[in-house]
């Protein structure tokens, strides 16, 4: 029951953030919205792991969190210096 309510909350959040990512007046809004969508994906994977009782899905949540963070940092570095890697 709580998990269903939580999933509905996360889906509402995904819908609002998708609206911002699609409409966002500047590129910064889109980057922030996509970073937030990555967070939503990780949280949703954790909720699915709880719902189905499969703890192996938590590794997928960790991988999604790491990749979202790396992507955001790479985008910010590219926008500032033009070089992603040193």
């Amino acid at each position, binding site marked *: 029951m*709580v*998990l269903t*309510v*939580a999933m509905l*909350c*996360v889906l*509402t*959040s*995904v819908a*609002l*953030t998708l*609206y*911002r990512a699609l409409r966002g*007046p*500047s*590129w*910064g*809004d889109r*980057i*922030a*919205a996509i*970073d*937030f969508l990555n*967070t*939503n994906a*990780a*949280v949703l994977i*954790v*909720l699915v*792991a*709880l*719902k*189905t*009782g499969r*703890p192996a899905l*938590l*590794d997928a*949540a*960790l991988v999604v*969190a*790491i990749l*979202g*963070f790396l992507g*955001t*940092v790479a*985008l*910010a*570095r590219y*926008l*500032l210096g*033009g070089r992603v890697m040193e």
Partner: protein
Amino acid sequence: MKPLLALLVCAVPTALAASPEALETPALGNLWADLLILVGCVFLLTAAIGMARFPDFYTRLHASSKLVTLGGVGFFGGAAIAFAPLGITQRILLIAAFFLLTAPLSGYMIARAGYLRGLPFYREADTVDEWGAHGAAVPKSEVPDAEKEALS
């Protein structure tokens, strides 16, 4: 009529209890896990509403990065408590610690890139830009007109 109602009243909980979802989630039902997940839901929904309704890029980033840090830790803490009988609490706490470290960092990097590239911000009468480096990192090759078109 009455036996039918009694049959329904007896059959519905039995069917619910026999559904595979109820069998596969022995870890749930913990009150503290439910409370933490609900707190995470409140933070996440607040962040999403702020993301959709705040006036400029920096306020939206403020809503998403700060609130999501707490909300994600609520979700992961709830999962850690709910999965405690399986003995994988450390792994979930590792994810929570990683999340607590990286969510503000990514928000900071996006905000810095946006500020140095000169994204416009919402101004009031007493707004002060103390750093004064707004738009300092815009490359010379970019024509301002193209930047304006991309922003609008």
